[in-house]
């Protein structure tokens, strides 16, 4: 946020990697087998940042997303991303150190810090189970479709 002469640049990939590495080192004692990932993006008028705490098989997958209206807040895209990253880091600091029972709303909700308004959302997911469920349902549907095809009738995908 206070990097002179770089206010208008976007966050470079190596900087994101560096920040990710710092997060993983800073919170190493709390991470167990999990790790952080950071990504940034840009939508019209908005800067988007996602900091995800997850494990390898994605049975724990916690993306915290932030978005900030750069024009309304008079911030560059880079400044907005760094601001959001700072705030999300503060949140994860509290989350990890306070027994992981501090959560933020699952849908976009307004927040304010240091006079800047922005929105955050986040939800703990078990993507491993979700994928397994999708696969199982997919197989089930495929089998069902195949059976109905053999019988010459269409499957009822919606049951009353």
């Amino acid at each position, binding site marked *: 946020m206070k990097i002179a002469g770089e206010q208008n640049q976007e966050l470079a990939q190596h*900087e994101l990697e560096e920040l990710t590495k710092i997060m993983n080192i*800073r919170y190493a004692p709390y991470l167990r087998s999990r790790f952080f990932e950071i990504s940034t993006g840009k939508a019209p008028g908005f800067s988007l940042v996602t900091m995800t705490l997850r494990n390898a098989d994605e049975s724990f997958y916690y993306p915290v997303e932030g978005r900030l209206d750069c024009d309304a807040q008079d911030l560059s895209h880079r400044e907005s991303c760094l601001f959001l*990253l700072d705030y999300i880091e503060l949140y994860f600091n509290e989350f990890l150190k306070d027994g992981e029972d501090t959560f933020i709303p699952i849908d976009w909700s307004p927040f304010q810090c240091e006079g800047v308004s922005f929105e955050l959302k986040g939800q703990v997911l078990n993507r491993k189970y979700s994928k397994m469920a999708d696969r199982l349902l997919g197989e089930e549907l495929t089998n069902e479709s195949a059976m109905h095809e053999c019988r010459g009738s269409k499957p009822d995908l919606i049951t009353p």
Partner: protein
Amino acid sequence: MADRLSESIGQHLVDETGLGYQRGIMAGFPASPCLLRLDLQKIMEQDHPGRLIRSLPVQPLYHALRERGLGDCVEILPLLSQEQFVRICDYDVWDGERLAPKQLLSWLSLYRESSAGEMFRRFSRLDEEYQLACLAPFISVFTEEDYERMTDDQQDSLQRFPGNALYFSVRAEDPVLHRQICELMDAAMSEDMSYAMQLVSHAGYAVPNEHEHLLTQFRKARIEEDGFVSYEESLSFFRPVRPSPLISASQNLSISGNLQPQPAASSGRSFLERVLEASAAVLDGRELTSIQAGLLCLANGLCSAVKMEPGDLPGLRDTFAHAQALISLSLELQSDASPEKAVSLLRFVHPKELFQTGLGYVHDLRLRVVSALDRAGLKEATKLKGYAQHMKPGLVAAFFDHLSEDMISLEQAEIMKGLFNRFPLCPLESSSDQKENSPARLSFHPISSLKDLQQLLLHLEAFFCQLALLRSGADKSLWGEKKGLSLEQALARGLVRGILGQRFQTEDLNLAEVEQFAAATDEQLHAGSNAFLEAAKQMLKSSKSLLSQEHGEEEDSIRNAMSGDAYSEYGLDQIRRLAKRLIMARREPSSLLWAYASTGSALNETSC
């Protein structure tokens, strides 16, 4: 380390002392013997639990309360002595050098669940500085004249004392904090009105931060008694003491027969835990308490060194585990793994010294590694030697962190970083099941035993064994001259030639060599591989390991361990596996290993 994440961009991840990352990177650890475990449930079932609780040391009591959950400790908290409560506040209600009023008021709110009077009594018996530092930022005081000048709305927002001579308002923005302060003031006004008025007057007119500053000094003095010494003083803990040759190390450190890494000690109990158990039968209560206090003091000192707050329980547990690991290593090596001898050592040698000796063993190994890297031709090795000699292992770890994968594989770099970590770590050998599930995963844990040290030596020796082989086949220096050629790539090329019966050379393979290797049968290649490995074994036997060359005249434990053939055999075993993989990989042109071997002129020719 910068406070804001964004300010960390471009900064080195090592602190100014060069000691390394502030925290070790590792998985969770079991409870440490450095900290006495208290069963609060059992204590509460005794006839006089209050007397018992007031006799307990504060830090273990604080950890036990936090582990039980403060919400479940409402009936225990009133039994604490005021001195214990003050010490708990010293541990828990601070955020660095700043008081965290909300945290202090949260503790007091727990007392309120017993009674409002108990809450007030606990607060009013705290140091005056605690009371004022907690309330001063949030209390505004108004006289009758001020009150008269206010609008109706402003007047309604104030609280008044009897007589309407003094008014006050709570100006905390946080609604929880606001409620807590109001509850405290209500309790104070109902218990002792004159005290409440004095408190508000003093808090309202207090010089900002004055009381907090004073309190910081008092707190610092108090927690120093527990071992949370100043950061500068804590750095002395990391001065390694050179281990004396107390033991017949060749018996202990050499590996005979089974070359596979031994199961890590962390799966069972550590040597220190066994020694403490043995000491319970031999030593009297006072000596045991003294040992326990020494261990806790050391662990707390290390927490200061890693700038960890006394209230950071998960962090403290990890730091305690590191302290335990190096003490355990030191005791095991110095006592010849005899619990009886170790009990005597623990009785007469301060845990800090044991920790430093444990670090000394690792420091010795670190010096050998950088020397070996120097001999292997690493350009920056002289600089690394300087860092290692001046006890700045963190700078060496940072070097490996930034080293290109072209020069050293990720796994080797991680092992090096583990060795040069402030609290040294070694790779944990995963079981075959785990390997199948996540073959690329490398877990680390603190070096806490002889077996861990052996495990680390095996990895290092395998690495240096590969380097020695490569050095024999490289016309130029391994590093620096030819950028973009990784060690594994060079090894793969040399192996292809070696298996084909040619001279081991790391130059690019030509098309004929690639085709010859691809067309040969498995039997031919396995026979070629065996012949090559036999020749390599003879070559490695005739030249000493890179790791064990320099300290030729020194008779210490680590050197003895290095001189055996077992380690080079382990290194050859790794090369044998690589050769096997290479033979398999030739059928899959997309495999990375085969691409490694065949990249260069041969691949270009093939592509053309």
